[in-house]
């Protein structure tokens, strides 16, 4: 017992001060892309050609746009671009409530995530139970979803918990591209969650199929099967991206 107390003192208090203080990200962290307007050469689509997940579109009208729901934040576009148009910033706030809001361009900045509609907010704001379903991912999203329940982020201080049974859940958090072998299991889990229910898609795979969008396993993301209410981009999303998304969605921060 004495040893445990001694060790408790040595290990210190480790919960981050967020949301009171902003979270510091590593300097090489690839967060929200920054697109500089009008530096592109005519007819140049080198970034698009370099992008492994077809997240970049170039059109005459809107210029260059990036779909954060497809982007895996690999930074290949930055390397391919001859004029330094795309750079990755340090901003981890990427979550969006509509699939269309995941798309940013030189003229359209990211739409700040708005809270859930009031009638649902009154139900979920102070107590929000999430059932996580991993469907064909690579396990990195699980890891960074799971890490929110460690003492560093301490998710339960916000009244948000991961629960074991879908029947105890208010929301389904889907990770992975949802390949064919998970279709039935995901649908069954969704059906077992009582109404009203929220569906969250975390990670490029769950939003669009990500890297696996064109393979043989019909994996194109959660909204091919379920109505998604919250999209959290990233590959995997940084724990801060997920936490920020959840708290904004529940109107706990603004």
């Amino acid at each position, binding site marked *: 017992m004495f*040893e445990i107390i001694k060790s408790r003192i040595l290990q210190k208090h480790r919960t981050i001060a967020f949301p009171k203080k902003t979270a510091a990200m590593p300097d090489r962290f690839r967060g929200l892309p920054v697109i500089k307007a009008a530096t592109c050469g005519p007819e140049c689509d080198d970034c698009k050609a370099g*992008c492994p*997940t077809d997240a970049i579109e170039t059109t005459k009208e809107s210029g260059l746009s990036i779909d954060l729901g497809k982007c895996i934040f690999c930074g290949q576009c930055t390397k391919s671009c001859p004029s330094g148009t795309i750079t990755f910033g340090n901003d981890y706030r990427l979550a969006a409530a509509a699939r269309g809001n995941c798309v940013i361009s030189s003229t359209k900045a990211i739409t700040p995530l708005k809270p859930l509609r009031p009638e649902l907010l009154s139900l979920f704001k102070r107590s929000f139970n999430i059932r996580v379903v991993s*469907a064909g991912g690579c396990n*990195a999203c699980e890891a960074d979803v799971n890490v929110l329940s*460690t003492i560093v982020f301490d998710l339960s201080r916000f009244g948000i918990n991961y629960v074991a049974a879908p029947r105890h859940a208010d929301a389904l958090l889907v990770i992975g591209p949802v390949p064919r*072998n998970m279709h039935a299991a995901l649908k069954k889990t969704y059906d077992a969650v009582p109404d009203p229910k929220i569906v969250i898609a975390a990670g490029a795979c769950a939003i669009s199929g990500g890297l696996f969008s064109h*393979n043989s*396993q019909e*994996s194109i993301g959660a909204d091919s099967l379920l109505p998604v209410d919250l999209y959290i981009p990233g590959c995997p999303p940084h724990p801060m991206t997920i936490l920020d998304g959840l708290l904004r969605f529940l109107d706990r921060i603004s």
Partner: protein
Amino acid sequence: MIHPDFYRIRNGHAIGLDEVPLVTFTEFKPILLNAVVSGARVVLMCAVPENVFLTKGHSTGEQMRLLCVMAWDEEGALGLLTAQVGDSFISLTPECPQVHWFEREIWEQWGIFPQGHPWLKPIRFHKPYRKNPRENITETEIGETVFFELKGDEVHEVAVGPVHAGVIEPGHFRFQCHGENVYHLEISLGYQHRGIERAMCGKGFEKRRLLFAETMAGDTSIGHCLAYTHIIEAFQKMTIPPRALALRGISLELERLANHTGDLGALAGDVGFLPTASYCGRIRGDFLNMSALLCGSRFGRGMVVPGGTGFDADIQRTDELLARLSSARKDVSNAVELLFNTPSVMARFENTGRLASQAARELGLVGPAVRACGIRKDVRSDFPTGIFNFAHIPAMVWETGDVFARAFVRWLEIQQSIGFIKSQLSNMPDGETMSPDAGDRRAPEMAVSMVEGWRGELCHCAISDGEGGLSYYKAVDPSFHNWIGLAMALRGQQISDFPLCNKSFNLSYCGHDL
């Protein structure tokens, strides 16, 4: 001693396709079985279409070959052998259990029937790679197969999954129990199958190959990525600058540190010892954040690229890493010593989920799971590549084969990895982190690459098409070898010990399913 019928290959080196030895199946079977008797183990066994061995212009239809890579760990020798095979062959599993999963895979992928396989069922539940249908197989839907059943009075079955009660990957487990005691556990996977192996050589996926390697198992990004880049570098005859080798080694060991620390915390959690569970959960994050300091990603994404590393570490960064490492070392030592000094924890760890050394050897297990059975094998010391040619990390073993041994081996490895990273950071070679651009594309070649990931041995095998593409790709995650180890360790245990045993192996679903 390596048998003369095998072609001796080197880890991470390419060979010409005309050098690949070919025998008939009648010759193949005794050669392989004798090799196993002489102390070798099967690293990889797969079926390869004959046409990838032939130069352009030859069409062969549906001919297939069995390809086998064997390791003689003690002498550091790798042997390659291929054999012609028709639509069926005589199963080697009854005499050599370690190929059981490989034979099931070959049957599922290519429809080549291993006659006499004692438990032939799909392992991933996907459509076959060839047009002709698999023999004697009707199930295509996931989970629809004939499960083992225990018959008798008062026996019962517990079915768990695919969706589990935690934030973990999907898989299906069936326990055959009598009271609390588990007589058999059957593990049925495939829910995470994304078709990566096929996509690795698919047209239009060239830009994604490196990323597929990074996501074969997300917690082993560096490991799988290294196995892949070693192959590409072998094909392109690249020489990797020493600084990049050091950075790669540091990244690989950081990955091991993060996962081993996380596992020790989770084991503590599974026996209800919350102090170490919380501390290690946090310290694991500290190691992940060290990876993020190097490359911006907690999982090392973008760090390893063909030719070197995607990022360099300046002096401020190496100093910062050293400082963080020494504070993490203090914290993790404290947390783990507390764990092992707590009698109630040791009472739960010791003698739980014991796996006999002989069973581990016969089943061909790898990684900490096999080292915890007193078997000394580790790719870093037996088949060193990269930085491990110059800096030696001794293989850590413990004899008891129980949950404690698997936990303790992890702790020993944590200490070794911290020491290794410290010494690398303090003596970083100068120079570039990328080799000059790739040389000419040459004739088709084959390469086998092995890396000791944190979970154990990763093996990738590829054949190039001579035009910059790949015509065959095979990846074996340590989980592929080790899932059966978990099933065996649980025999005779109480069903309530399953979470603890499971965590002590901590195998990958996606790495298995690919």
